[in-house]
């Protein structure tokens, strides 16, 4: 469907990748850890190695959670835009198939949030 208007309605997407000064927007969510109320949004360089995302970006974002240091990263289950995904740690985000406004989710089996509440 499309908008009904009295004139030719221009399509002006506000968040295209060119607006982000060389970065791309990436959304990240840690499933079943709602102490962080929602997924987060970050502008990241497309060449950022996936390993750096885990070591720096996720540590900054989620390090306050009591379960964060207990994560066994070799057992983490990744989802990219809703599909199971095996990241290449040395490749950059773009080379891992992570596009502008992609959603990266991770699940940590055995860690079910504060007191098992999904928090």
């Amino acid at each position: 469907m499309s908008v009904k208007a009295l004139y030719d309605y221009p399509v002006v997407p506000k968040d295209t990748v060119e607006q982000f000064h060389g970065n791309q927007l990436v959304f990240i969510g840690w499933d079943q850890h709602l102490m962080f109320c929602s997924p987060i949004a970050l502008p990241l360089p497309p060449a950022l190695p996936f390993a750096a995302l885990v070591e720096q970006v996720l540590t900054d974002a989620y390090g306050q959670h009591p379960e964060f240091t207990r994560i066994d990263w070799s057992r983490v289950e990744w989802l990219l835009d809703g599909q199971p995904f095996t990241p290449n740690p040395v490749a950059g985000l773009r080379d891992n198939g992570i596009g502008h406004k992609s959603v990266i989710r991770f699940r940590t089996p055995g860690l079910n949030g504060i007191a098992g509440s999904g928090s």
Partner: protein
Amino acid sequence: MAKPMNMRDKYNRMTRDLGWEPSYQPKSKIYPQIEFEGIKIENWEQWEDPFRLTMDAYWKYQAEKERKLYAVIDSFAQNNGQLNITDARYVNALKLFLTGISPAEYSAHRGFSMVGRAFPGVGAQVACQMQAVDELRHVQTQVHTISHYNKYFNGFQDFRHMHDRVWYLSVPKSFFEDAQTAGPFEFITAISFSFEYVLTNLLFMPFMSGAAFNGDMATVTFGFSAQSDEARHMTLGLEVIKFMLQQHPDNVPIVQRWIDKWFWRGYRLLSLVAMMMDYMLPKRVMSWKEAWEMYFEQNGGALFEDLARYGIRMPKYWEVSVQEKDHLSHQTWATFYNYGHAAAFHTWMPDAEEMAWLAAKYPDSFDRWYRPRYEHWIAQEKAGHRFYNPSLPMLCQTCQIPMLYTDMDDPTQVVYRSTEYQGEKYHFCSDGCKDIFEHEPEKYVQAWLPVNQIYQGHCGGATVPEVLNWYHLRDGQDNRDYLYSEDRQNWLRWKEASSQLETT
């Protein structure tokens, strides 16, 4: 002496008879917006205003409402009424209301001025003009209340500026801008019917009754004074719907889609009200869940049974709103607790007594899903590490609220919905918001999403203090936890001073 006119004659003389047939311009040029939405009106003369209010009576009753209202506001100010509220925490509910809703009242004023001009029928024009004046009156009364509270509490100092910039205020702002940029029939369906008739009772009735319970007579008075106009607005909303449905069968699916859209948009906006009711009133009148049952499930249900005869069903996804009633206020409050460093009001954790109330009102959800999170946060705060989320949230493209809502089949799982439009990805908090986008993608791709705008460099800088400065939000004064706030310190000082006065 001539016999006095009866009500119907008087209404006809003083509304319908004000119109005239244009002679030197075609009606299509005078009312150019009336056809493009697809609504077909056969005869504007069939418009019935059940209130049959004429302008002379309107001014008389409104003047009386104003006299009563300002008498209370004056006496509240003269008697330092702000000291009689239950607790200074309460004022934070008011900050959210007055910064989020008051500018929206002004948007409604502008919207009704525009649609009053757009409609060809005199009955509709007069009703819209009255509502435009009402909405302006509401803003004015609320600005007086802002003015009073601003003398004693933080966060009220620049509500207009904040409305255009602060991240969570983009939620009500974009809601009204969506309505104002639609055609006149969609606007009036959105605001008069879906928002006013179906949803504003949730805003005004339990919340204003809550304000009374918490000693805030200034707010009760502007709230109920506004709501007394709302009864007329609601009647207008219902009349508009019935009028469109009766005029042509082709109107039914268009109106149904608007009801679906604006119910969902309005319901998402009410997340803010849910958390006000359950968390921000020191003395609570009823829970969000009880209010939703009373005002939506019961009264809304009866309304839609009435409308079934015109071919209208309950708004799409209403069942989701019923499932979410056990979670909505907790998830919203937890979000503001996460981002309390970036809000123009204070947040806090409920005390033990309040948690017992929440557990009693929400036996199926609170202790299991929310209490453990809160107890962790309280322990962290006591250890000197009050939790704030260090990252900015992902927002829904349609409602602009952080993606905080979870799947009702698994309340620990955030709902992710997405679509692609012209090669670009878009994300949503719900099926309701995704449907709205997909119906008019050209409209929502332009959304000014506050988080994305910060990253594009349009909001004063890349750090939180720079953004707060751009918001005109005073870091350390207007934001962060109530426990450490200047508001709380002042409040304790004033209460101590007044109790000493009483004992001497």
